[in-house]
């Protein structure tokens, strides 16, 4: 047999090495692929298929085409729920993003950078982090204690100081309380992101602005906020998607009540699928939920001109 030349051996080795180096990243990522595929992709596909059945307690795959969707949109209650959900998502996103910008600017920019009170800023931020660090069951328990109906719950104790009768907060203001609880958690989690962005601003730039005679408010508007553009985009998108899916805090605080006043779309999905065991209907509703949140998400990307932001050379010196 003819011996292969050195050039041939080299070429062969090279091919082998190249193949190996191409495979290697996929090998590293394989646990991710397997887990995501098994627990995310496959369930999504199953759910999508399920939405074309009228699967109930018996778990039978009985295909009925688009009938579930027809039934779903015929439901007059759904319109109210969708409207309520959109108000909740849009208002919640705006409130949580604005409040976290406000808190970040106060703690990280004013306290840390301008007044050099780093410790005060850190303490304030840690306190603000607590809501998002608290497990939601504990968090809901606290809110239940604060707004509970008896004489011994916090807000009623406060009322008693002014000689007022205890009231049933959750019956009177269910939407407001729920909204507050959700916005505070969400605002609290974004403060980390925003603070990090503010801290990334080179100190020299702020010093230069101060030498140039700019007031802290002006620096905030012209220098700090532009630096926050990218995190604000991220946070807004994230908030929109999260608010669409919020259900556990509703479940823990109001169970969608009273009289369905706090039933958002996600909670409606949950009720249909798991309380009423209408799995086919639940799946169809979930598909609608995904479609709605995707639509609003795309709108956010458009409003914030994400394409432009990604193309921009983001100068970090």
């Amino acid at each position, binding site marked *: 047999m003819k011996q292969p030349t050195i050039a041939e051996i080299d070429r062969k080795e090279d091919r082998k090495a190249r193949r190996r180096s191409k495979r290697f990243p996929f090998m590293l990522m394989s646990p991710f692929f397997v887990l995501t595929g098994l627990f995310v992709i496959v369930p999504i596909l199953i759910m999508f298929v399920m939405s074309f059945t009228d699967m109930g307690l018996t778990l039978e795959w009985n295909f009925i085409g688009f009938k579930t969707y027809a039934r779903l949109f015929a439901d007059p209650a759904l319109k109210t729920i969708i409207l309520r959900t959109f108000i909740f998502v849009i208002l919640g996103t705006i409130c949580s993003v604005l409040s976290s910008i406000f808190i970040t600017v106060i703690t990280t920019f004013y306290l840390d950078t301008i007044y050099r009170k780093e410790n005060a800023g850190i303490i304030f931020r840690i306190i603000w982090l607590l809501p998002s660090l608290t497990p939601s069951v504990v968090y809901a328990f606290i809110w239940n204690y604060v707004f509970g109906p008896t004489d011994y719950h916090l807000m009623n104790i406060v009322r008693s100081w002014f000689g007022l009768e205890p009231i049933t907060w959750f019956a009177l203001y269910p939407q407001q309380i729920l909204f507050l609880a959700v916005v505070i958690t969400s605002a609290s989690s974004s403060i980390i992101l925003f603070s990090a962005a503010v801290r990334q601003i080179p100190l*020299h730039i702020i010093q230069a602005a*101060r030498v140039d*005679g700019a007031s802290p408010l002006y620096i905030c508007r012209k220098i700090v906020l532009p630096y926050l553009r990218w995190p604000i985009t991220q946070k807004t998108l994230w908030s929109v998607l999260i608010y669409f899916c919020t259900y556990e805090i509703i479940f823990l605080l109001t169970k969608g009540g009273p009289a369905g006043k706090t039933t958002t779309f996600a909670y409606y999905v949950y009720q249909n699928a798991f309380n009423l065991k209408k799995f086919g209907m639940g799946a169809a509703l979930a598909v609608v939920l995904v479609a709605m949140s995707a639509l609003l998400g795309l709108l956010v990307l458009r409003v914030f001109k994400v394409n432009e932001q990604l193309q921009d050379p983001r100068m970090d*010196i």
Partner: protein
Amino acid sequence: MSEQTKSKPLIRLENVSKSYDGGKTYAIQNFNLTINQGDFVALLGPSGCGKSTTLMLLCGLYRPTEGNIYFGDRLVNNVEPKNRNIGMVFQSYALYPHLSVYENIAFPIRQQKGVPKNELDRRVREVAEMVKITELLDRMPGQLSGGQQQRVAMCRALVKNPNILLLDEPMSNLDARLKLEIRDEIKKLQADLGLTSIIVTHDQDEAMAISNKIAVIDDGIVQQYADPNSLYDMPKNLFVASFIGSPPMNFLEGEVEVFGDKVKFKNDQDDISLPLAMVDVDRLTSSKVTLGARPHHFIFYDDQDVPGNTVRVHVEYVEPLGKELLLKCHSGTTPVRILSPLTDREFEGKDIRVGLQRSMINIFDSETGENITIR
């Protein structure tokens, strides 16, 4: 010299100290400096010597822990940066990344209330023209090269017609050729505008070239404050002597004895006699002295004809610098660098005797480090 008598002090630092940790350590201590109207002063020193702190104190971003800072007759210790009317160029240029070049330059004017739009536009264009960046006004800072960013930073500092221009290592991020170019431009601008300027630098060539006065700083203390030539010829102490000049000054340790009207410098290697009038013997704290001689202050002799008063050195190797030769030698264990005119003579590996231009050398007290030469 006539300049100095005409001009009045514009900036005075009186016993200024600055501590960042409540008095445990000081970045600068008992700092005294007077800067006259129209001066271009360089604060020169190794990193961490307190020169940037001094600049921060001048621009008002930091407050002095002790001492007073005056602009003219006005005490400015607690005056906000914006009320000091200073222009500042930062080492990183610190351009506002989300504003165009035009808006960057307009930024300081926008802070002055009630400047009409056409006046603002006129001033921005005027200063842009002066620094030759008119064609860059629409760009964003991220699209500019380092040199262009530097110019924009200059424009932003100059546009508000400041009384004082502060430059914090403005050229340390530029390549060598651009550095020379910008250096000339800054010097010309400063002279044209008659603007009192202070530059912080660790580059002694830059300081020598650009400024008319240099404050050499080490350990938070002004070691010497003088014009470049006297700094070079008569360094006040060993630190200044070793810091200024490249290749650096050579130092030979030894002892002195007085013989009549001569002073004899002596160590294991050599004997050199100097006129008594040259050395302030009263200031000697011991007989130990250090003789300092710059690399080009040596005299070469033919091998046969070597007079006394020479230093014997062993030449290790020769570095051709183009216009001259740099001999890397040893005198005993002390390294000595000598510049020689171009010659065919073989130096490498040889022991040679070189003379000293005695009128140019400096004698330092080894204990105190002070220069005790009399000129």
